[in-house]
């Protein structure tokens, strides 16, 4: 009787489990099998040759793969740093109990708006703005005399990566702002009042109260942004018609994976890249969890 009852809960999670097994676990193993073959994505997997670890051998010596990791990280770091600074600055201003800014609801909506626009529309919008000869950015910069000659933003590696970082910042700072603001608003007022009484200045309050208090939130923002960043695909794909040009500087890991799998018919190798990405994600996750865990140990020691 007891044994039966123990089984019952499984019946209830079965719907989820079955769907999860079919749509998540099975593809993961299938992808691994593909990665051991030279499957082209066409003509059936049965006609593909099993080539063992050849794809993995190729992957660890593949300069394009490392370049794609580097590109992804550069674009992510650039975007994330700026976005965090802007969002944190705005969150501080809006949550300052001395400033008492009005219209939070309005600004919150305004900041969040870019995030609602689909990536496809954003890419069209920015390809028009960034257009070399007819884009409004170059026109503007030349009108006010900053530039003498138009810059071909999307045909120079550094500018192109910078542009994508800026677009990402524009799209995501509202989201980050909302989360950080919630974190700051959640700080116990007693702490702040105590700091006023002790005569702490703005910087001291920020450094010793706000920042430590929102650290878990910052970590959350960082992890979610990192996961999103590692999977960056649509924007570089749409901005460059899938080429990842100039000089491969917008070829992110997932774009590389996609092109190898679908454009160049190296489905087996594409699967290997997917596992490479998986491995990178694992490494980053370990680093992040270690950092979290290290903090907990320290806190425990203090007590």
């Amino acid at each position, binding site marked *: 009787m007891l044994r039966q009852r123990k089984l019952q809960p499984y019946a209830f999670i*079965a*719907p989820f489990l079955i769907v999860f097994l079919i749509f998540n676990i099975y593809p993961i193993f299938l992808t691994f099998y593909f990665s051991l073959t030279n499957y082209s994505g066409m003509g*059936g997997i049965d006609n593909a040759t099993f080539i063992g670890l050849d794809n993995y051998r190729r992957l660890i010596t593949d300069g394009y793969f490392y370049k794609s990791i580097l590109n992804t990280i550069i674009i992510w770091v650039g975007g994330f740093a700026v976005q965090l600074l802007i969002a944190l600055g705005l969150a501080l201003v809006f949550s300052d109990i001395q400033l008492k800014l009005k219209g939070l609801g309005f600004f919150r909506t305004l900041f969040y708006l870019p995030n609602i626009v689909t990536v496809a529309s954003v890419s069209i919008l920015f390809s028009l703005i960034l257009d070399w000869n*007819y884009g409004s950015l170059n026109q503007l910069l030349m009108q006010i005399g900053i530039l003498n*000659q138009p810059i*071909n933003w999307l*045909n120079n590696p550094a500018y192109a990566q910078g542009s994508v970082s800026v677009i990402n910042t524009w799209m995501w700072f509202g989201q980050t702002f909302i989360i950080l603001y919630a974190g700051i608003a959640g700080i116990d007022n007693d702490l702040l009042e105590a700091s006023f009484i002790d005569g702490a200045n703005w910087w001291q309050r920020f450094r010793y109260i706000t920042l430590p208090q929102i650290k878990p939130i910052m970590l959350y923002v960082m992890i979610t942004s990192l996961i999103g960043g590692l999977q960056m695909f649509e924007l570089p794909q749409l901005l460059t018609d899938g080429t990842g040009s100039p000089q491969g500087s917008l070829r992110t890991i997932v774009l590389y994976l996609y092109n190898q799998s*679908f454009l*160049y018919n*190296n489905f087996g190798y594409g699967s290997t890249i997917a596992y490479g990405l998986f491995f990178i994600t694992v490494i980053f996750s370990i680093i992040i969890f270690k950092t979290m865990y290290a903090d907990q140990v320290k806190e425990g020691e203090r007590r």
Partner: protein
Amino acid sequence: MKYLKNGFKLASIASLSLLLGACGEDKPDLTIMSFTDELQRPIDKFEELHDVNVELQIIPNESYRETLQPILESGEGAPDVFTGEIVFMQQWLDANYWEDLSSDPYNVDEWSDDYVDYVWDLGKDSDGNVRAVSWQVTPGGIYYRRSIAEEVLGTDDPKEVGDMMSTMEGLMDVGAKMSEAGYALFPDEGSISKFTSAFGANEEPWFDEETMELNMNEQRLSYFDYAKELRDNQYSALAPAWSPAWYQSFDGPIPYNLGWDELEDAEGESTIEVFGVALPTWALDAVFKQEASENAGDWAVTNGPTSYFEGGTWLGVYEGSENKDLAFEFVKMMTHDEEFLTEWVDETGDVLSYSPVTDKVKEDISDDFLGGQNHYEFFLDEADTIDASTVTPYDQQLNDLFGTQVGLYVDGEITKEEGIQAFYDEVNNSFPEIITPDN
């Protein structure tokens, strides 16, 4: 125990019904998948003719291949008839997604004399069996403005203008004359690639399908130099293909920013008008008539230094279709039905590949948009000179990789040598089986 069993049953039924929820609708007699809606009218006619229910599923061009290929690969939810584009078609032909139409009961080999050679040949898999047929030809030419030709070249006659541009040197001479008169030859440098490396333009294939050796011949390499020449001599208007400025350049003068320093004398504003552009048959409707019709009647079309083609839609019967007879009937109507295709020409102006119809109509066609020119005969003549054997399965991908490097070179980001090396590296990475000259 019973309780538990029921629990399991319930749960599995619940999850199964979740999975199967979408099924169970009325199945049409025939499902057709394509990337445009142009098949809708033929389908309406076909439904009427055979009293059947046909469903057209349109998958946007950008994701057509990526969406359809897994479906064809697994067979789940596959159509009965589907179209393919030249960009990936040869790969599909050899993946056996389409039924072999050379075999019984179709025996389409009997039709071969009725079609333009290159179109017919491109529908064959590597064993020479026909798997897909196309109703149209899509060769290209140079569309140009008659008034500008008259002013600068002294004639607007397509034949005479075509003679002037029948070699690369001649084309560049025309560019120089245009430049002197204040016009740009082409909107962008990409136009020149149509005559160096586009589909069917080069005398030799990109690579040898036996030895897999990449063939970087002089004609392809010349794209670097001609593109640079176009940019440096300001024969192009810096309006990249398919950009808003590019469309605008067909309607009238567009702003031109190169050398901003010099323009300060000209009070910061300068414009340039474009003489012509290299585009295929379908651009007449899709680009000019629909998007840039300001100068209707002032256009004409003529030849460039080489013949080439761009795009084109083939269709065939899905190898796993359960209704192959009916599916083939549709393919037949679309590609081999004199009455239907004659109507189709009247309605769409499409340049057909099926000679029983084109022979009949080609002499009487004239297009007001092109100043009354008979573009039909011109395009059919161009199509006849195209040799399908120079087309490889990866032409589009190789041209894209190559064009990217040329673009960087023209912008001064890299040297020509760096561009060529980068191209070889990209090819080695994308197509490990192709051997590049540097290896």
